C-alpha cells in the first residue's frame, strides 16, 4: 500500500495524525507481518486492535474450537459460532472489521516440529497461549530465530506483559527459568474477562509501538497488573547468564 485511498486515509486518520506514527508509521503498519499465537482471551483484543490499525498480514495459530465457556472473555467470537474453529471465527471477525488485512490461519497448535517454520515467516510474534509448555516453546523459538516477542499471561484478576527482543534483552526464561510449582493453567482456573482485555490491549499497544519504531517500550521491564487492588507494579528484568533458552549465542 504505497498510495493511500481516500477510504484508507479516513480509516487510519487517527493513527496518522499522531506525531509518533504519522504517514510513515502507518505505511509500516500496513506492510508488517504479525503472528498471533492463540485466538483466545489475549488474542481477542490483540487481533481486534491490530486488524483495526491495518496490520498488513496477520497469521493466527490455534487448534481449539469455540466453547460456550470461552465467550466470557474471548470477545471476538460469537455465540452462533460455538463449535467453529477459533482461527476461522477470528478470520471472520477481522474481515468484517477491515478488509485491508490479509489473514492466514493455522488450524492446529504450535509444536516443536512446526514452530520454527511458522514463526520464521513473521516480523513480530504475539504470545496469547494458556500454558507454560507452549510459552517456553514460543520464547525459545523466538530467541533462536531472533524474532521480537510480545509476551503476556493472565490468571484471575492479575496479568503480566513484557517485550522480548532476543538480540539485546532478557527473555521469558530469564524471568521464569522453569515452570513454577503448582502453576494452574488458564483453562482450569478462573479469569476475569476484563483482565484479558487489559493485558491484551497492552500487548497490541506494544506491538504497534515496536512496528513504528517507538523506542520506549517494555523490553527489559515487566508490568504486573493487579485488578483486585487496581495497581500496576513494574520490575526490571535482567538477562540471566545461565538462561536455559536454546540459543547458544545468548550464553
Amino acid at each position, binding site marked *: 500500500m504505497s498510495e*493511500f485511498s481516500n477510504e484508507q*486515509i*479516513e480509516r487510519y*486518520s*487517527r493513527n*496518522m*495524525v499522531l*506525531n509518533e506514527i*504519522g*504517514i*510513515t508509521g502507518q505505511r509500516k503498519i500496513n506492510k508488517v507481518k504479525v503472528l498471533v499465537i492463540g485466538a483466545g482471551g489475549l488474542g481477542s483484543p490483540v487481533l481486534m486492535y491490530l486488524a483495526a490499525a491495518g496490520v498488513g498480514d496477520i497469521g493466527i495459530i490455534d487448534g481449539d474450537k469455540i466453547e460456550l465457556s470461552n465467550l466470557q472473555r474471548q470477545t471476538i467470537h460469537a455465540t452462533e459460532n460455538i463449535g467453529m474453529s477459533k482461527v476461522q471465527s477470528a478470520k471472520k471477525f477481522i474481515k468484517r472489521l477491515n478488509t485491508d488485512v490479509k489473514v492466514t490461519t493455522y488450524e492446529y497448535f504450535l509444536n516443536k516440529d512446526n514452530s520454527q517454520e511458522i514463526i520464521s515467516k513473521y516480523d513480530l510474534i504475539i504470545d496469547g497461549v494458556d500454558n507454560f509448555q507452549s510459552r517456553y516453546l514460543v520464547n525459545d523459538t523466538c530467541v533462536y530465530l531472533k524474532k521480537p516477542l510480545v509476551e503476556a499471561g493472565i490468571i484471575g484478576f492479575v496479568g503480566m506483559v513484557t517485550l522480548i527482543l532476543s538480540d539485546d534483552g532478557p527473555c521469558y526464561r530469564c524471568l521464569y527459568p522453569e515452570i513454577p510449582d503448582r502453576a494452574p493453567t488458564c483453562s482450569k482456573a478462573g479469569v476475569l474477562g476484563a483482565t484479558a482485555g487489559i493485558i491484551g490491549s497492552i500487548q497490541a499497544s506494544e506491538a504497534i509501538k515496536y512496528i513504528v519504531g517507538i523506542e520506549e517500550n517494555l523490553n527489559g521491564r515487566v508490568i504486573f497488573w493487579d485488578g483486585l487492588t487496581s495497581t500496576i507494579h513494574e520490575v526490571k528484568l535482567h538477562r540471566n547468564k545461565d538462561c536455559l533458552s536454546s540459543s547458544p549465542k545468548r550464553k
Partner: protein
Amino acid sequence: MKISKTIDLTGELCPINFIKAKIALEDLNKQEILEIYLDDGMPIKNVPRSLELDGHIVLLIEKANEAYRVLVQREGLNV
C-alpha cells in the same frame, strides 16, 4: 516562488485535510513549496498551525474567493 504541487482541500474536514497535506508534503523534497486551498473556519484555523508543529514553514495565507490559499515550505522530517 516556484510551486511544486497544488492540492485543493476545500470540502475536507479535520483531520483528513491535515493528513492529505502531510501526504502531499511527504512527496516533496526539502524546501519545495506546496500550495493548499482550505475552507474558512476550523480548517484555516487548524491546518497551517498543525503543519508548523510538524516543522514545516507556512509562507503565506491569503483569502482566495470563499476559501484560503496557503503556501507551505517542506521542512519537517516527521511526516
